[in-house]
C-alpha cells in the first residue's frame, strides 16, 4: 500500500473528526447538566454557517475576501448560534424541565424541523423583504435563497488553498478545522477547570440540588452550557463552509446525528470523550471508505460505518470509550 495514500486518509479522517468533535461537545455539555439529548443541536451548527454568510453579506458587503473577514464572520456565527440556542432553551426546553423525558426529546425533533424550514423559507425573503420596505427595489444587501445551497464566502489564503508534504495534501481549510478544534478544546479545559463558572458547571452536573445550596443559579448554568455548545458548533459551521464551499439548510441533520454518535462513543457527559469520540468517528468513516474493498467499500457506504460503530460501542462498552461522567440511562 502507498504510505502517502494512507497518510492522506489519516489527515482527511482527523479533519472530518475535528468537525464532528466541535459539534459533539454541545451534545455532551448539555447532557451532562440536564440529561437532555438536544437533537436540535445539529441545526445550531447549520444556523452558525448561515450566520457567518449573513455577516459577510452585511459587513463584508458580499465582496471582501481578506483574511480578517474570518474573525468577523466567526463573531457573527457565534452570535447567531448562541442566540438561537438560548432562545430554544428558554422557550422550548425550560418550560419542560419537570416534564417526563419523552417531552423534551420530541420537542427537540420539532425544533430541528422548525429551524431547517425557517432557514429554507425565510433566510433570503425576510432580510431582503425588510430592506425593500426601506430602500425600494435596489437593496444594499442581497441575501441568497437558502433553497439552493448558497456559496460560502471564499477567504483568501484559506478557501481552496493547500500545500503538499511527502505526497500528502494539506488543505488550509482542513488545517483551520483541526487548529480550531485544538484551540476550542484548550479553551474549554481552562473554562471548565479553572474558572468559577466552570466549576459551578461541574458542581451542577454532579448534584444540581446541592449546587443550588451553594448559591449557584442553575438556570444560568444551563444557559452557559447551551451557549458554550452553540459557540463551538458555530465554529464548526464556518469550518464546514470553508471546506465544502456550499452550505445548505439540511447540513445539520446528518452532521448532528454523527456528532451525537461521537458523543455517545466517547461517553456522553464527558467533554474529552466527545472530542476523542469525534476524532475516532471521523477516522473510522474515512478509513473504512478508503480501505474496505468490494461491495461494502467506497463512499456509498460512508454513512453506515458511524452507526455500525455506535451499535458496537453500545453493545460492548455502553459507557463509551472514556466512560460517561453521568451514570444515568433512560
Amino acid at each position, binding site marked *: 500500500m502507498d504510505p502517502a495514500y494512507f497518510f492522506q486518509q489519516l489527515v482527511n479522517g482527523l479533519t472530518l473528526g475535528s468537525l464532528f468533535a466541535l459539534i459533539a461537545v454541545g451534545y455532551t455539555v448539555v447532557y451532562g447538566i440536564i440529561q437532555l439529548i438536544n437533537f436540535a443541536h445539529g441545526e445550531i451548527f447549520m444556523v452558525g454557517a448561515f450566520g457567518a454568510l449573513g455577516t459577510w453579506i452585511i459587513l463584508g458587503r458580499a465582496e471582501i475576501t481578506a483574511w480578517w473577514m474570518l474573525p468577523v464572520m466567526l463573531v457573527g456565527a457565534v452570535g447567531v448560534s448562541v442566540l438561537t440556542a438560548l432562545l430554544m432553551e428558554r422557550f422550548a426546553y425550560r418550560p419542560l424541565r419537570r416534564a417526563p423525558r419523552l417531552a423534551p426529546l420530541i420537542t427537540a425533533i420539532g425544533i430541528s424541523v422548525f429551524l431547517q424550514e425557517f432557514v429554507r423559507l425565510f433566510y433570503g425573503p425576510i432580510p431582503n423583504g425588510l430592506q425593500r420596505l426601506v430602500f425600494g427595489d435596489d437593496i444594499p444587501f442581497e441575501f441568497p435563497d437558502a433553497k439552493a445551497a448558497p456559496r460560502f464566502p471564499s477567504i483568501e489564503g484559506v478557501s481552496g488553498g493547500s500545500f503538499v508534504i511527502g505526497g500528502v495534501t494539506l488543505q488550509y481549510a482542513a488545517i483551520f478545522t483541526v487548529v480550531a478544534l485544538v484551540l476550542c478544546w484548550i479553551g474549554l479545559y481552562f473554562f471548565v477547570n479553572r474558572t*468559577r463558572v466552570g466549576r*459551578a458547571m461541574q458542581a451542577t452536573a*454532579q448534584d444540581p440540588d*446541592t*449546587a*443550588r445550596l*451553594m*448559591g449557584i443559579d442553575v438556570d444560568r448554568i444551563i444557559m452557559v452550557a447551551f451557549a458554550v455548545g452553540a459557540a463551538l458548533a458555530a465554529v464548526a459551521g464556518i469550518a464546514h463552509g470553508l471546506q465544502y464551499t456550499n452550505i445548505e439548510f439540511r447540513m445539520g441533520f446528518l452532521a448532528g446525528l454523527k456528532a451525537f454518535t461521537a458523543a455517545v462513543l466517547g461517553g456522553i457527559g464527558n467533554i474529552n470523550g466527545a472530542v476523542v469520540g469525534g476524532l475516532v468517528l471521523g477516522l473510522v468513516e474515512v478509513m473504512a471508505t478508503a480501505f474496505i474493498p468490494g461491495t461494502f467499500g467506497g463512499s456509498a457506504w460512508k454513512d453506515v460505518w458511524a452507526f455500525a460503530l455506535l451499535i458496537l460501542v453500545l453493545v460492548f462498552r455502553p459507557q463509551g470509550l472514556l466512560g460517561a*461522567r453521568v451514570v444515568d440511562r433512560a
Partner: protein
Amino acid sequence: MLEVRDLVVSYGRVRAVKRISFAVEQGQVVSLLGTNGAGKTTTLRTVSGLHTPDSGEIWFDGERIDRLPAHKIVQRGLAHSPEGRRIFPRLTVVDNLMLGAFARRDRGAGADLARVYELFPILHERRNQPAGTFSGGEQQMLAIGRALMSRPRMLMLDEPSMGLSPLMMKRIMSTIAELKAEGVTILLVEQNASAALALADHGYVLEVGSIAFDDTGAKLLSDDRVRRTYLGED
C-alpha cells in the same frame, strides 16, 4: 432570626409537613427531633428553597424567603449542610470548599479556608484529592466545612453526625458549640438526641409532619416522652 409559620409541604399528594411553626432566635442553637420520616429534612429543604411550600410563610432576618430561589437564600446568609453529605464527588476537596464560598461577594474566603483547615486538618492534608474517595466521616467534615465557607449567619445541619465514630462525633459537636460561641445561629437536625439537646437552647419534636411539643433543651433531655422515643430508655 428564622421564623416558620404554618408551613405545609407535600410530595405530589403526600403531605410531608403539616402546618408546622417554629422559630430560631439569633445566636441560638435549636434542635429539631423526630423519628424517621417525620419531615425534618423536608422542612430544612423547604427553608433553603429547594421545595416550594403549599402554604405558610418563612421569614429570615425580617424578610420573607419562601418564594425565593435557593441560590438567593444562601446569599442572604443561610447555609445548609444537607442530609447524606452531598459533597461533589469528582471535585477536589479544595474545589468543594471553594464552591461553599460561591455565594459570597467579599474576598474573605481565604481566611475561612484557613479556618476550616484548622478545624479539620485532614481536609488540608488531602485538599487535592477527589472528594468521592473520602470515607463517610471525612465527607461529613467536608460538608460542614463547605457550609461554613459561605460565612453564614445561620447554619442548618441535617444529621451531621451520621456515620461518624464517637470521637469524630464529639469533634463535630464541639465545633457546633464553637460556632455558637462565635454567634452563628444553628438549626440542628440530629439522630443523636442527647448530644443535640445538650447543645440546644430549644428543641422541637416533630411527629409525622406536625410538631408534637417543644421546650428548652435541658427540659426535653429530662422529658419522659423524649427519653423513651429518642434516647432509647424505658
